[in-house]
């Protein structure tokens, strides 16, 4: 494949490493994959953007390094037996997409997609993934969730929440909860507050409950395409059978999967209902005054952009609009925000296989948040919240962590007289 050769139209999940040959040869070592976009640098301390390079300081952890590894593998310069260590370089990546963001702006190259294609090749060839990832895949294959939790427990979060079970009665809107918040009871508040807000706004809301299956996002990121394709097809069938008109999810992984990954799977029917992230949907409800934030929440906060919500899907403003709509909230921005946001360290399977690295990355984000003078870090992603929560427990610096919708609930709840 040469640079100007007309490339066959392929969906992302059809692509092999060879489809990126011109790209991996053409990497210019400009190093923007490791650094904040130049116009955004506000300090020396927070000038980098790749969590893995920042931690380990050697090139194979960077987007550029992976392009070079991919080139050498593609040309047969070495193979798996010669370089078993590369499994760690490829899987430490949090798939935050910062490398690809900057590289695409500069050179039209896609280091994250190259890395994900490397992962897919590793899985196909039996070289990968990491044992910790195999457990996630097994979980999805056998339990419909990566955490190996029984299906019967999936709807426990909803016992106190007014929401329809689509297995029993129809609804216009599917609330796609996702596995992490459904099974981790410290994250139930995310699902509960979102459902409560939507219910209060009069949305006809239903869930799949015990029948919900993983969106497949962790599996796609790990590189098990076959399992992901199966999951995607099952989800589309389930959703279409349910007859819902729209889907709302607060999990950026689920959102990205349903909205942007499924269309990239070859041979799948198009998902008919529109897919919304809770932040954009609730921001719209606030604009339409279907939700009113009348209670004051006196808090200095800073917003952490989840990578799969912001950089991957372009939702930067909606959560900020929500925060600005809450009386008493003072939003103070960190240095690295929006497309240049620093990852929490929890994505792409990094937390499962490299928990120390994931925590170290979260600690760096917390340090950045603390420099703003904010009392609380606010975000909306179960992976980010889980990872940041662990790091906060370690550092114990008084910084609070909120899910965005927890604050909306506080601001919008009617005071009992």
């Amino acid at each position, binding site marked *: 494949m040469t640079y100007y050769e007309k490339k066959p139209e392929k969906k992302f999940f059809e692509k092999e490493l060879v489809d990126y040959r011109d790209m991996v040869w053409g990497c210019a070592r400009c190093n923007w994959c490791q650094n904040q976009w*130049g116009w955004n640098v506000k300090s020396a301390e927070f000038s980098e953007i790749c969590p893995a390079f920042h931690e380990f300081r050697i090139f194979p952890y960077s987007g550029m390094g992976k392009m070079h590894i991919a080139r050498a593998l593609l040309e047969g310069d070495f193979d798996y037996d010669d370089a078993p260590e590369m499994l760690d370089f490829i899987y430490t990546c949090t798939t935050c997409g910062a490398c690809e963001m900057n590289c695409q702006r500069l050179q039209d190259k896609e280091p994250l997609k190259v890395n994900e294609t490397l992962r897919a090749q590793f899985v196909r060839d039996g070289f990968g993934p990491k044992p910790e990832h195999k457990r996630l895949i097994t979980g999805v294959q056998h339990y419909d969730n990566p955490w190996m939790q029984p299906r019967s427990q999936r709807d426990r979060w909803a016992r106190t929440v007014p929401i329809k079970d689509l297995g029993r009665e129809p609804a216009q809107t599917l609330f796609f909860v996702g596995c992490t918040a459904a099974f981790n009871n410290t994250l139930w508040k995310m699902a509960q507050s979102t459902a409560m807000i939507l219910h209060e706004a009069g949305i006809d809301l239903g869930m799949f409950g015990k029948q919900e299956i993983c969106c497949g996002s962790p599996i796609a990121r790990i590189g098990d395409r076959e399992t992901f394709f199966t999951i995607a097809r099952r989800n589309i069938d389930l959703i279409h059978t349910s007859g819902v008109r729209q889907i709302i999810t607060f999990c950026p992984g689920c959102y990205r999967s349903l909205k942007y990954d499924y269309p990239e799977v070859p041979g799948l029917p198009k998902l008919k209902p529109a897919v919304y992230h809770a932040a954009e949907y609730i921001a719209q409800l606030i604009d339409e005054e279907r939700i009113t934030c009348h209670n004051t929440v006196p808090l200095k906060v800073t917003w952490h952009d989840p990578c799969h919500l912001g950089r991957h*899907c372009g939702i*930067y403003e909606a959560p900020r609009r929500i925060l600005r709509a809450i009386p008493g909230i003072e939003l103070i921005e960190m240095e690295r925000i929006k497309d240049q946001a620093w990852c929490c360290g929890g994505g792409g399977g990094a937390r499962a296989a490299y928990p120390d690295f994931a925590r170290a990355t979260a600690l760096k984000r917390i340090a950045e948040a603390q420099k703003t003078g904010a009392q609380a870090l606010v975000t909306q992603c179960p992976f980010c919240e889980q990872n940041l929560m662990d790091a906060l427990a370690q550092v114990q610096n008084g910084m609070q962590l909120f899910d965005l919708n927890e604050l909306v609930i506080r601001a919008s709840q009617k005071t009992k007289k």
Partner: protein
Amino acid sequence: MAENKPRKVVQKRLPREVYSALKNVVGERWIYEQRSVVETYSKLSIEASTFLRKHEKDPHLLPACVVLPNSTEEIQAIVKICNRYRVPFIPFTNGQVFCAPTNAQPTLIIHLSRMNKILRIDTENLSATLQPYVDYGQLQAEAMKRGLWNGGCPLATSLCKLASQYSFAGLWQTDLKYGLLNRNIVSVKMVLPDGEILVTGSRCIPKAGDFWEYGPGPDLLGLQRAAAGTSGIVTEITVKLHTWVGDASFPEIPAGRPSLVDVHEPKYDSPPAPLKNHKLYWIEFKDFQSQIRAMREIAHAGIAIGLNATGVYSAFYCSQTQEMTIQRCRTKFFPDWNCYVILANITSDQQIPYEERVLRQIVEETGGIFLSETHKPEVLDALKPWNYDCIRHTTGFRMNRKMYANAWLPVGPLDSAFETTEQWKKALDLFGECDITDRGGADDTPFVYALQRGHFCFFETDNYPDPVLPEEIKKAQAFGIYGNAVFVTHNLGPMLMAFLNVEPLTTMFPEVGPNAHLLMRKLREVFDPNSVCAPGRQVFTEEEWRQFPEDIKAAVNKMRAMHNLPAVV
């Protein structure tokens, strides 16, 4: 039947005792010799010859080992080990240009990525002392908070490390006023190739302070400057700071931010108006002569902090996609003959209005037209990335969507622009184009920097072959070598030859003296008695010269023969 597998490229290994000695210095975490690690340090960036060597599966491109020291002392210990065991080493930062090819011996990479701290910013004496992995963007961000800045940013982007640029020359967009980086260095602390420490300038006098580049005795800083990493490893560099009159940080970009799903939306490429107390003017000219004349007048008038011409390169810098770039080249969307001028209110609020009046008069006299709301407003709008980039350059490598294989980089008086452009056009006619970007970068305009008040200029025309096609890369390489020959033949100014692994000026230019390369060899022997520091770059020992590819040797000697110089043996 044997399976037809591609040939593997196998790295060399350091002797175990060397590896152990190095591990003792940096610790187990910071030493690597795994195959996939060394691959990412085997030069493959923007230079034709190593791309070809990669295509040919040359194992000598692979280093044997990578170490990541964290202090001057660790570097000193590493270098001493290298001398003791005669192990060649290559200092490494981004690894884009100055990372010499490794050679037949197992070679060590000393990656400086852990040494990334700004050690001090002296607001009284206007200087900053940096570790070698600090880049322009970091320094500028910190200095701006204190009402200072370092005076410029290379067009090769703000990611360049200052300590690496010291090995080059340090070309800035604002060096009309501030000069090249090499005019802005106060001192360096470096580990010499034999492991000794050298401290230059006034800093080497106890208690004298770090304020002046000249120390007692000969100018050792000058001797080390622009040595392309062959003279040792900079572990601390002190640079001058200047007054900054903009805001404490760059403002957020109001147009919003792109994401991976809409990164190429044109709406995301419009930064705001020029920075506070700065103003950027774009001027179009009817021909190259008018452009050069205007640039000379502007430079000599003493106004402005930056004066450069981008020519067709704006199509690369300011377009969202490769298709858009090519389209803009073809339709000549950006003016062929142009320049941009950066004015700043440094002395007073009246400085820009005064200098603008001078500028307007010069432009009128030279027949130029300002891009404005009434003259090509759509072009002016498309050029807005420069509002930031002229001060902290970010988008530069957009030009490099394929690969950046070679360049003609002459330096000379402004008048030499005409001759160099003519020669480039002849070369294109002779070799044929690799791509539209060649022709665009040459026929229409080379990049022109007016340096140091216009005392001299730097020109650039580039070459972009397809990285997966060795034949195209060979053609680009031949282009570069031919360029050297042309400049020698026509006695054009010396040029920066970072992209050619051939001996530089000392071998080629008769004015330096027929045997200047021998003097340089002697100097190298003094500083690097064991020939371990970045061998194969700049100045060669006899042994290294013997190892050189025969065709390169022949090319160099052919050029020398043109000037009746004896062959290098």
